[in-house]
């Protein structure tokens, strides 16, 4: 069994994000970069499938700048067997999906697991688009995964409004991981040392023969409005008046 997982390079959710001076992106200087937390969950799930199946291979893929090697090394340190980096600039979700399709065609995995979304642009599109382009079944936002004994299908539990939905998808299939699927392991020191020797293949996006011209152009980016300081009122009456006339919530 072969499992392909994605690892996008995104800013650490803990870091302070500022809009850059041209107002069309974020200020990248001083930012710490990490594996997209939902992708970490995807990697963990792939490793758990591998551990349960015994003979599986886990391939971790990143599409982005060459620095995304760091995120692939993290995936390898967690336990993935090898890594593929597709380098390219200014790639929107549709371009990323088309590139991922090429990699899937090349690798022919039984399962592709992606995070349900990346925490930088929150698009929540790549998994779905990729499955569509491949003509594969998809199970999105899953919180539990069970591979059938004969490995021909996967039972996926999804959190839906007010309850759980369990669906079965024939393999190969694409799955996107939700927050409660698992708790990802840490990269241990022995894992980090082993990762050094694992193969990391680099491919240029341009060499894959897909049109990566962006369909989406970011016109501007703005921080949320600063919160104004609170104020202490003297009485309940004053509070009610302020809520009615100033905050206009009553």
């Amino acid at each position, binding site marked *: 069994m072969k499992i392909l997982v994605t690892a996008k390079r995104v800013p650490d959710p803990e870091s302070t994000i500022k809009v850059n001076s041209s107002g069309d992106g974020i200020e990248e200087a001083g930012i710490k970069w*990490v594996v997209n937390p939902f992708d970490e969950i995807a990697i963990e799930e792939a490793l758990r499938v591998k551990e349960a199946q015994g003979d599986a291979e886990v391939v971790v893929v990143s599409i982005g700048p060459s620095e995304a090697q760091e995120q692939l090394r993290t995936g390898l340190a967690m336990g993935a067997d090898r890594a593929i980096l597709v380098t390219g600039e200014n790639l929107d979700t549709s371009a990323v999906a088309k590139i991922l399709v090429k990699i899937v065609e090349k690798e022919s995995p039984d399962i592709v697991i992606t995070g349900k979304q990346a925490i930088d642009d929150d698009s929540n599109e790549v998994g779905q688009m990729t499955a569509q382009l491949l003509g594969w079944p998809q199970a999105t936002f899953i919180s539990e995964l069970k591979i059938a004994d004969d490995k021909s299908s996967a039972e996926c539990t999804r959190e839906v409004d007010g309850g759980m939905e369990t669906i079965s998808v024939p393999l190969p299939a694409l799955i996107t991981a939700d927050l409660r699927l698992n708790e990802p392991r840490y990269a*241990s020191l022995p894992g*980090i040392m082993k990762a050094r020797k694992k193969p990391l293949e680099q491919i240029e996006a341009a060499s894959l023969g897909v049109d990566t011209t962006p369909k989406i152009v970011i016109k501007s980016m703005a921080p949320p409005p600063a919160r104004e300081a609170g104020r202490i009122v003297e009485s309940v009456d004053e509070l009610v008046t302020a809520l009615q006339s100033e905050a206009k919530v009553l």
Partner: protein
Amino acid sequence: MNLELSAEQLMLQDSAFKWASEQWGPIVEKCDEEDWMPPDLFKQAAAMGFLGVSVEERYGGSNAGLLAEGLVAEQLSRISPALTMSLIAHSNLCIGNIANNAGDELKDKYLPGLVSGQLIGALGLTEPGAGSDALYGMRTRARKDGGVYVLNGSKMFITNAPVCDLMLVYAKTDPEAGPRGISAFIVERNSPGFSVSRKIKKAGMRGSPTGEVVFEDCPVPEQNLVGQLNGGVAVVTRGLDVERLMVACMCLGAAHEALEHSIRYSLERKQFGKAIGEFQMIQAKLADMYSQLQAARALTYTVCRQAETAGRGGKGTALTRDAASAILVAAETATRITNHAVQIHGGYGYCLEYPVQRLWRDIKLMEIGAGTSEIRRMIIARELLRSGSCEG
């Protein structure tokens, strides 16, 4: 500042900090308040590979070098200097000295259990009447009796003593010979005559249990001699060089965290209508804290790298001088930085809800343990005057 760490070292730093934040972050206050150590501390650290960072692979270690070991100590210490100290006493003081000095039989017997966290280790050098003067003042005796050495005496301030399974103990095998009559032994906790007479209450480093140990006719098999008979001084002094570097790294971590808290607080806290970070006196403190931290860090990392390639340390070597310099600077820097951090936080800083006071109480120990600041200065001066130069 680019400290020229490798990709693996950077990843190790990240992973260690993330692990400590998530695993220790929620319990550090309890550890401090109740002087409580989580029971699975060693096994969890072992699962991350943190008990055998620089130990050979065949004993379950990663052989990743001393700087890597220091980077782990630094990151863990950002969250809890106390728990980190217990791990270091185990992995560096106990495991490190056994790995560097014991014969294959002892290493095969004890290292796998220690590195995997099945066994908890400690090191016993200090005595109630022999601290700075441990080598000359030592009273604990090991008398040969057939196939065993019989230990009598006591050890003071021993980290992990209340929870340990074994202890590397220094004792006089030739009382007439002064420091040349000291030997090192592995003593198992369940040996008859081995007892921990009390757990010591401390101002900081709470959560790292410290004990006083008594040996009363405690028999130790002669095979448990570590290194040469009467060769204990070499074990002590070489071990101390690396121990000092690990302590220096711990100081960097606590100071780093205190500075982070201080920067954030300076941006948030308002007085006289502005953030306190707008006051020049606060700014000067932050600037000094950062600069001194980075200077201490550059020195400490440099000496860690030097120690990776230096042959032996100990008296008369550049490594002994420089390890003493690194810990002297790092520890005094860390006490100053954590002290400033409390000051910047004002009344809140002095209260237990804010973590800076804990870092301040914890890290003060680092001017005392592993040789006091005074002893460190003596060592540095001794080496300078011995060689007649500051070069080399």
